[in-house]
């Protein structure tokens, strides 16, 4: 069975959920091989095996660089294994890696796939295009397909295997090490769940009114155990940090519950949240487009509705 190379990400908390999603998708196309940049600890190898990795390629020497060394490592491994597909998670690093790998392998590339499957032996994808307004299906006709997959689109399923671990020493080109990370300034942790992984997201828009006013969004998020999100209008005003932005140029989220308060619902915002399972909106304007995608909406002042909601949740929790 043909190999499928999967770029996986290890963190101090373990292998990322999105990497397990990729391994799950890879099994539909062939035999999954994980490509792990950095050190491979036993726990990482164990969870990659649990989700079906037959091989784990460990690539040292990528620290301090963004993405080109990872791309060259994949190209190096692909040169020996002729994979049917290379799968990476959508996001800045994933896009950079996928782009370079596609050029080097002359491989067709699909980005932000929400599904990957094999149809008659051909790698076939689904993706939403045009700010989520259309669904396109495509077939990749080159020998290898390069696909970036949206996080949270494919449910991870275990399929235990015992991976063979292989260290791959790659002679990186000058271009690979030409761009160096010179500083890394850590952000203050809020203790809330990560936006893209959270089951509940509570987002505020310009209608929240002020930086102080945004506190009500955070309180509701905490009472629901969720993450905080925002519109670009809010991040442009610096009421909250940019990494909380949801939408076309921010994060794409698909939680079980998305609460949108004081958000008009511009297409660029909806593009990042409209595949959420349940959507709730609070807006004082009955014509706000956000109500078109809401399962439940309250027309009113969020500074009245949300505090009442937080109280009520408190009472129900007892």
């Amino acid at each position: 069975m043909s190999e499928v190379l999967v770029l996986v990400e290890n963190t101090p908390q373990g292998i990322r959920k999105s990497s397990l999603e990729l391994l799950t998708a890879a099994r539909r196309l062939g035999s999954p091989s994980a490509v792990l940049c950095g050190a491979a600890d036993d726990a990482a190898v164990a969870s990659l095996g649990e989700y079906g990795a037959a091989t784990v390629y460990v690539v040292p020497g990528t620290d301090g660089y963004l993405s080109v060394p990872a791309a060259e490592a994949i190209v190096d491994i692909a040169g020996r294994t002729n994979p049917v597909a290379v799968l990476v998670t959508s996001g800045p690093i994933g896009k950079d890696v996928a782009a370079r790998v596609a050029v080097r392998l002359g491989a067709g590339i699909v980005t932000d796939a929400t599904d990957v499957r094999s149809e008659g032996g051909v790698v076939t994808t689904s993706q939403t295009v045009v700010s989520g307004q259309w669904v396109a299906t495509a077939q990749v006709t080159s020998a290898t397909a390069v696909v970036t997959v949206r996080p949270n689109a494919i449910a991870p399923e275990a399929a235990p295997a015992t991976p063979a671990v292989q260290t791959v020493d790659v002679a990186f080109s000058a271009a690979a090490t030409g761009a160096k990370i010179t500083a890394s300034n850590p952000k203050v942790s809020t203790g809330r769940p990560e936006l893209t992984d959270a089951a509940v997201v509570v987002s505020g828009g310009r209608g929240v009114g002020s930086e102080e006013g945004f506190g009500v969004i955070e309180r509701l998020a905490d009472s629901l155990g969720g993450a905080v999100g925002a519109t670009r209008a809010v991040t442009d005003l610096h009421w909250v940090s940019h990494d909380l932005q949801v939408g076309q140029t921010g994060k794409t989220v698909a939680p079980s519950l998305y609460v949108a308060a004081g958000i008009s619902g511009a297409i660029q915002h909806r593009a990042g949240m409209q595949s959420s399972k349940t959507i709730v909106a609070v807006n004082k304007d009955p014509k706000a487009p956000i109500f078109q995608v809401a399962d439940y909406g309250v027309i009113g002042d969020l500074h009245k509705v949300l505090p009442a909601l937080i109280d009520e949740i408190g009472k129900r929790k007892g």
Partner: protein
Amino acid sequence: MKIVVLVKYVPEPTATWKFAPDLTLDRGAVEGRLSELDEYAVEQAARLQEAGTASEVVFLTVGPAKAVDGLRKALAIGGDSAVHVTDAAMHGSDALATSLVLAKALEKTGFDLVLTGMASTDAEMSVVPSMVADRLGINQATFAGALSVEGGTVSIKRDSEGAVLEVSTALPAIVSITDTNPEARYPAFKAIMASKKKPVTTYSLADLGVDASSVGLAAAAVKVTSVTPTPARTAGTIVPDEGEGGAQLAEFLSSRGFV
């Protein structure tokens, strides 16, 4: 230092888009514009020129005849000249082909620094900058939230999970600019008039030495097999707040198991 800015002419995002029978976006049916996300790169180039860091700024687009309107908009914001690559054979090109043509055009114009948007607002792939970098064998610093150039080195700030990274690389390099950078200025009437006199050079694929059979729909390694509208969400319940909005919302959330 010579800067070339890659700009894409895209359908107006707020218009209703249509797909042609060959499943490509029907660009003739929708009003076009300079991609809003490329305006951030155009503005950065204009600022680097005003600061004396850039000696020359050129805008480069690959697109249909109408794409020249996008170049004119960029030239009204700043820069000296523009290059328009247009050829009927480009219709339906995939990202591999587009990046090939852009790389060939860049070899012709010459450059020290290439600036791009973070994504187009039509296909939104965010891959062309890295692809062009790979084809030209140059350094890349993508998704720059801020940019500075000093003595042959370009430095950027890039948002990543948990940290803001600083990345530096030597020129020649390609840098993609995010929408956390300053918005493009609104060009003054005088600047718009002056821009009409700035030269725009048009190239065909043959001018760039690109074989037409290596681009276009037939050469694309990704075949779109269907395009359908996203299923509409079922209409929800919308209630006015008459003092009970918070309680009603709590009841709804509880009925769905969230409370």
